[in-house]
């Protein structure tokens, strides 16, 4: 069956151990996690976990139903591709030896990212956008010396009136 990539938004109780329960479920049943992010919501009782996963239709269905059985999972929203608004953040520490600071700053600006000089030729580059644009930007940065990368998982909401609360 066809593999598809799916973004799931989980409304969960905001106490410790909940993330472990969710990730445990994925590993114990052999489901894939492409990316994951977690944070508090407007309601201090709840956190939101955004999981990008993949599988055929039957597996995606199982993932949703198995997650729904967890006591701490209050709602699950599969955000449709057509409504998906997803952002992630990447930080890249990069060493730039053959461009001046001005040239590098222009290069970063053209690519709609931000940069700060740390010392000498060492820069902190920051970008917040969609996953593919970040992948493409990292490819471009390969021409310099990438020292280290930190990348968040995707965080997403539906570009529509639909919310995770509708799925409770």
């Amino acid at each position, binding site marked *: 069956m066809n593999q598809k990539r799916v973004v799931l938004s989980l409304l969960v109780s905001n106490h410790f151990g909940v993330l472990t329960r969710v990730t*445990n479920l994925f590993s*114990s049943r052999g489901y894939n996690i492409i990316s994951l992010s977690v944070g508090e919501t407007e309601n201090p009782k709840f956190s939101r976990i955004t999981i990008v996963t993949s599988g055929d239709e039957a597996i995606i*269905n199982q993932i949703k*139903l198995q997650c729904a*059985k967890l*006591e701490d999972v209050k709602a699950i929203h599969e955000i449709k591709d057509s409504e998906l608004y997803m952002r992630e953040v990447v930080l890249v520490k990069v060493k730039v030896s053959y461009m001046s600071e001005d040239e590098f700053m222009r290069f970063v600006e053209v690519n709609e990212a931000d940069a700060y000089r740390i010392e000498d030729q060492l820069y902190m580059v920051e970008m917040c956008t969609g996953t593919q644009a970040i992948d493409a930007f990292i490819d471009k940065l390969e021409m310099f010396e990438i020292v280290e990368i930190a990348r968040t998982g995707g965080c997403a909401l539906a570009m529509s009136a639909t919310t995770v609360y509708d799925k409770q």
Partner: protein
Amino acid sequence: MMLNGSQILIQSLIDQGVDTIFGYPGGSVLNIYDALYDKKEEIHHVLTSHEQGAAHAADGYARSTGKTGVCLATSGPGATNLVTGIATAYMDSVPLVAITGNVASDLIGRDSFQEVDIAGITMPITKHNFIVHDVKELAATVRLAFEIANSHRPGPVLIDIPKDITAAVCEYEKLPRFEKRPISAPDEAQLKDAVNAIRRAKRPLIYAGGGVLSANACEELLAYSKKTQTPICCSAMGLSSVPYDYELYLGMIGMHGTPVANYATLNADLVIAIGARFSDRVAGNRKKFANAAQIIHIDIDASEISKNVACDTALVGDAKQILTHFINQVEEQKHEEWRNTLVDFRTKIGLKKPAEGDKVDPRDFIYTLHKLLGDDAIIVTDVGQHQMITAQYYQYAKPRSFISSCGLGTMGYGMGAAIGVKTAHPNRPVVLITGDGSFHMNMNEMACAVSQNLPIIVLVFNNSVLGMVRQWQTLFYKQRYSETSIARKTDFVKLAEAFGATGYRIALKNEIEPVMKEALSCKGPCIIDCIIDPDDGVYPIIPPGKGADEIIYGN
């Protein structure tokens, strides 16, 4: 009323309807045992030999009664010893509340003496678990644990309580008895589809699992089957949901199921699965299972629908309600041709016939056991050949009379479970049918059975080998008997006497009846060492991963 955490725990258990718990004391639960000392009249504590036995006992208690089993253990090794028992209950959807003490809050995370992260360890084998951080939350947590363990698909819940919480004092207010969460009704359109499919069917078959027993839907199952003349087969978990002498009962399905039950799956045009999960022991080949049939899957757990075998109609809800709906909606049916086909097949190919001669064949021992024990008996098993032969041949009369670790296949389950069952049913005969391999695992619980004065009959089918594994070595590993010829020197009769129980030995067929009669009159537990042939195998067998058409009859 001001109470400490331990008193609150015990009082909360009483408030939730608990009168029996199985456990073992230790450092982190000293306060809890101290509180129990004052409530001995209200809660009967069964001291097992080992915490694993306590978990299995709570499980057997729950399976045989439908009530929640409760076990209690100390931190560290006490808690980890429960793990196999909790996993066993999880796989077979048994309502269990396991309570563990832990080291005091200020010692947690410091690798303190007897500290273990039992909540972390049991996360994948519980429906939910709790660490109690505040004594004020304790009573509500206990109540919630019972609610979760019993709601929808039952299962185990663990409560871990740090020692300081068991000493902390707070105002206690009695909470009402837990209530099961409401079950939503199945989809209307799917219900209509199901009724239409039933009306169209010419060769329908019911595949009943443990969910029928959990839903207390045995009467409805039988009434539906009678009205629509639909034959029934059971998964191992579903055994005893249908009385053995019901004319449309085909027996167990799957790897060691009856020939006719498996034949029926190949030829049915409609399979109604009720509270069953199409495990690999039923649907060895998921792609081939009941290929000619439409499948209606009734289950309380939505995640079971199309998990292993895709179904055509999904009814998520209460089996009792759904069967009642069917009984009301569907007209009387007759499927004479189908029925004749099955009867004809069963006459030609039945289960293996017991061997002739003087030696004991466990098949006719188990087949005739029902006559000696009566309809009231509850049969507990361990895991292996004896378990499958018991599943195949014992004549189950009443619901919840077959107590066995079917999903996890826990060798050593039986002795603890039998203690739980006999504790719950002191006036019903309880027989543990085990093998010499399984019994060696947890026979320490004989000490508990003797102390508790529980007249359990432990029937050890002794073939001096690990029969089931050995059988697979025979069939699939060129008879290379690696580590399965255990040939222990244990004398089970002397062992029984050493424990303070009674021991018997059966080597010949004609000894069965007199020994069993004596065993039944025992005031305490007894062990019967029954010598059987090491080369005997369980048949039929559908080899792992294969379909019902690849069955090996072996006779």
